[in-house]
């Protein structure tokens, strides 16, 4: 049922990329995330699973401080990226987000050309010295987004004119173009059909060579297929975190077992 071979081959000790300790998140008066401790490894795909409203997306958005854009949201606790506290006042959230890229639930290409969509991040951060350099970054990113072959002849066409699956791969390529160290994906396949989903999943597996990928998903099959580590959230608590194979075959906590067998959620 689950692709255990892949996950087992990935079981080897990796460096910790992100380390969260005692994280609390409040939306106004409601306590959305409670005491979450988690270590996310480098060059690994980590899946966050759990029922709707369990806080997995909220926690994901803490990792690149996207929650700062929500007025009523407060985050407490420590989140360390490469040993540095990302909520330290010295840290510029803008620079942090360049290092920790994000792909959203709904494909959100800018109403610009495909080329300008990809070149957006590199231009903002001054990653290209000249036009030729930028062309190269765009091509490399589109290739990594596994969409180069489909769009190479129409880079001037608007990004919004692509199909849903193509748009999402464009958004992944756009995130990759800024050379992030961590890529956060918030249900990246929820708006896609099975074929596009398979393409994106394949892409995630390739991205693992270079990045630490964190993916929120509602599909347990998807979590089992693409991830090496899985975290199960329930009602704002991190219930269980471990090797994907172990979580899906031999969960420790009874709540995890209930969820993956479909009894809660």
């Amino acid at each position, binding site marked *: 049922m689950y692709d255990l071979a892949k996950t087992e081959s990935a079981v080897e000790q990796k460096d910790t990329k992100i380390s969260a300790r005692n994280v609390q998140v409040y939306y106004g008066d409601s306590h959305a995330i409670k005491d979450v401790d988690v270590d996310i490894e480098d060059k690994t795909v980590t899946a966050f699973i759990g029922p709707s409203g369990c806080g997995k997306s909220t926690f994901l958005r803490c990792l*690149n401080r*996207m929650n700062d*854009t929500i*007025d009523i949201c407060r985050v407490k606790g420590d989140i360390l990226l490469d040993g540095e506290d990302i909520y330290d006042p010295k840290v510029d959230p*803008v*620079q*942090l*987000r*360049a*290092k920790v*890229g*994000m792909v*959203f639930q*709904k494909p*959100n*290409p*800018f*109403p*610009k050309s495909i080329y300008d969509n990809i070149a*957006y*991040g590199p231009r*903002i*951060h001054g990653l290209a010295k000249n036009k030729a350099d930028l062309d190269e970054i765009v091509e490399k990113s589109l290739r990594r987004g596994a969409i180069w072959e489909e769009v190479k002849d129409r880079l001037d066409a608007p990004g*919004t004119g692509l199909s849903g699956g193509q748009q999402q791969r464009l*958004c992944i390529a*756009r*995130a990759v173009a*800024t050379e992030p160290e961590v890529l956060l994906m918030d249900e990246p396949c929820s708006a896609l059909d099975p074929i596009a989903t398979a393409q994106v999943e394949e892409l995630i597996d390739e991205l693992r060579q270079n990045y630490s990928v964190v993916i929120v998903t509602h599909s347990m099959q998807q979590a089992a297929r693409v991830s090496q580590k899985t975290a199960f959230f329930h009602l704002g608590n991190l219930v269980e975190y471990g090797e994907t194979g172990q979580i899906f075959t031999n969960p420790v906590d009874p709540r995890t077992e209930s969820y993956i067998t479909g009894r809660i959620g």
Partner: protein
Amino acid sequence: MPTFWLVVFLFALAAFGYIAGRARALHSAGGNARDLHSLPAYYGYNVSLTALVPALLVLAIWLLAQPLLVETQVSRMIPTDAIPENSTLGLVMSDVRRVAEGLDIAVEQNALTETEAGSIRTEFTDLRGRLGELGVALGSDVRPEVLKAAQRYRVINSTGHLLMTLVVGALALGGLAFSYLRTNKDFRARNVVERGVLALLVLAASLAILTTIGIVLSMFFETINFFKLHSWTDFFFGGTWAPNFRGDSELSILPLLWGTLYISFIALLVAVPVGLFAAVYLSEYAGSHVRAIAKPLLEILAGIPTIVYGLFALLTVGPALVSIFGRGSEGLLGVEWMAGATSVLTAGLVMGIMLIPFVSSLSDDIINAVPQAMRDGSLGLGATKSETVKQVVLPAALPGIVGAVLLAASRAIGETMIVVMGAGAIAKFSLNPLESMTTITTRIVSQLTGDTDFASPETLVAFALGITLFVLTLGLNILALYIVRKYREQYE
């Protein structure tokens, strides 16, 4: 019976119809409302609507049509040689109406009996004197053919009125009886009422559209009259605006159009950046508390009557500009560029202030319509807020903002009070914003106020100016709506 009591009677009948219809429906179902096809009230509405609506419609049409019919009937009685030199049939007819009204008042106050009013002759009675005693002043002695026409006028009018009362009353009673008899428990009253509501809504919508068409047509015919008296090449292509009453006026729209567009341009130069930046601040940066206070405050600007802006231009902005650019060595700059308070710059600045809420409110709505996902996408790539606004939000909102600016431009072109008070009255081509100039709207006001003679081109030119202005703003509005609509499709 005066028309007022007729209307009261109709409404009373409708109220009675409601009660009767409802009762009959309930009775036919043996008192059990659940056996009825519709709720009992619908049967009541059905009866009262069939009693009321056709009768009211006929009443309205009759009230509009009767004066026209009476007019044509009576005006035939006045022979052409009875119309004095330098007068028209229209003037004689207004005398006729005046005399007829005077007779009505005389009868009402028992100064004359009904038969006397119908039979008196100017040969034997000083009608002007007698009506004067009753407070009806006539301009000249009543001539026999006028009095005769007036008496005829009264007769036709009162017959018409009687006939109208009978027809409307019969229609109301007939409608009531018809739908009362149709009322039984299987009658689909709800569907009928629903259709009635639909008809009412369609009527309201078409009234608004017909009014617009009516306005355009009335302007159009007067414009045709104008072009019969004045050459259209001078109007559209001439270079001078110089009306006089010697009959050789030069009436060209171009200097006025230049003033209008120049002032509007300055107004937009003020309103667009300020309004747009205010909208960006309100929608992207301001917290919910600031927004809750600042947005209504900004929109108060939109509620200020334009005459108040005009006063502001005349009393505050104009003198302030003069103290900067004028007064020679006493002025702030020590120059003598500006003589009076009225100038293109004065009117443009104040009109710009007036347009700020217009631009900001529309742009704010459009910026808010840009999906949050766009902003998240940009912020998630490490862009700052202003980079996000500049490179993602504004480009996405641009077509809508262009639409908002065009709407503001059409407001500016049609604006009247501010330019009447702030811009001056001199029609000329000049690039100097410190000189006073005039606009199309100002000239319409000045051509139509005071003593006007609706047969001279100097007055009729106002209609030609008006319709040109209308076409101009209509074009801008259509363009703006087209752009805004196209933009809306982008996110659907």
